[in-house]
Structures are given as C-alpha cells and as structure tokens.
C-alpha cells in the first residue's frame, strides 16, 4: 500500500525485492515497469510535468480502487516527474494477490488509468525539437474496457 511521486531515479528490482518480502503471504506478484526509450531516434531526454496538488490523491484513489476490486494483498505505484534520461525508469506498479488472474488484471487496470487519468504530461526533448506526447486512441479504448466490468 504505497504511492510515491518522485523526481529521482529508482531501481525497479530493489522495489520488487521489498515488495515481495512484505507480500510474503500472496502467491502471485505482477509488476509493470516503464522505461525511457528512444523510438523515433534522436531523443535526448524526457521531461514530465505533473499537477502536484492532484497527483498523490489521484494515485491513492486509483490504488484504493484496485485494492478493493481485486482484493489485493498489496499494491505499489511509483511515478517520476522532471527530467528523465534515456534508459531510466519512468514508473512502476506492483500488485500482490492470492492468484495470478487478479494480480495481472489489477496491474493492467492501474496502467490503463495511469496513462489516461493521472495528471502527468510527457514532453520529448531532442536536439532540434520539444514535443508534447499525444495521448493515444488506444489508451482511451483500453480505459473503456474497465467500464464494462
């Protein structure tokens, strides 16, 4: 049960080690880690803006929904803001449940909502341009899946 919004880089492996130790009574742990990658070529770094007064509470409410809906034993959300260099970790979610289906579904749910309902905005900075990342239609479609449940 933790939500962390931070500018510093972190090691998802170290987070998983602690998470598993705390969630020892759970049988199934799923993690998702997002990394800064250079898709188009030329990316120098990523700049993530967020809405400080809203971010923590938005993530906590997301976590509470996942905990209740999938009866998770434990849940972790870490998301960075500020300048992020290539290869660095952007964010991570971890879910612990008695069975794998719940752990997978809850992690998937958290990701879809983080993409479209948490107040973060990514800007890609390369040598000659700065571009705000556009939200994808696939993200909206992914989000819609959870309304039918």
């Amino acid at each position: 049960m933790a939500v962390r919004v931070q500018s510093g880089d972190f090691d998802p492996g170290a987070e998983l080690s602690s998470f598993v130790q705390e969630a020892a009574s759970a049988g199934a742990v799923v993690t998702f880690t997002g990394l800064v990658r250079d898709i188009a070529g030329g990316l120098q770094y990523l700049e993530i803006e967020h809405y400080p007064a809203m971010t923590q509470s938005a993530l906590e409410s997301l976590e509470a929904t996942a905990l209740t809906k999938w009866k998770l034993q434990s849940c972790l959300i870490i998301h960075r803001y500020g300048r992020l260099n290539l290869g660095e970790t952007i964010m991570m979610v971890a879910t612990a449940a008695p069975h794998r289906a719940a752990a997978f579904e809850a992690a998937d749910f958290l990701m879809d909502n983080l993409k479209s309902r948490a107040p973060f905005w990514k800007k890609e900075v390369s040598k000659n341009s700065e571009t705000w990342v556009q939200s994808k239609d696939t993200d909206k479609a992914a989000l819609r899946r959870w309304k039918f449940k």
Partner: protein
Amino acid sequence: MINVLYFAWVRERIGLPKETVETSAKTVAGLVSELVQREERYALAFSDVSAIRVAVDQELMDFDASLVGVQEVAFFPPMTGG
C-alpha cells in the same frame, strides 16, 4: 476568486502556470468563455476544447461542472502518464 492552473501546452500557450481569476461564471464552461474573450493567447489555448481536460478542486470533471464553492480549476491536455 478562483485559482486557475494551466499545464503542459495549455500552460505554454497561455504563458503562465497559474493565476487568480475574479469571475461571476457559474460553470467551468462559463469561465472558459470569459477567459477566451480576454486575449488572443487564451482564445488560442482554448480553440479546441475537445483537446482539453479540466480538474475542479483536483478532481477530473466535465466542462458543465459547477464553480460554486470551488477554489481551484486546472486546464490541461489529455494526460500521458505511465
């Protein structure tokens, strides 16, 4: 008096992250109408409201949300976290 916040390219187009606005608007949509009449940069930022999301007192809301008792309104593009 309402605190109005702007993020990402909405902030860049309007040219500031935050301002205090004296308004008689009853809804978010009413507030937007007032803002776009102020200056070209507001009109530009709000030219396509379908591309803009709004949070009222840190909760995502629709543009018809009431401003009664509200302290903070934020405008921003669709979020791209994760």
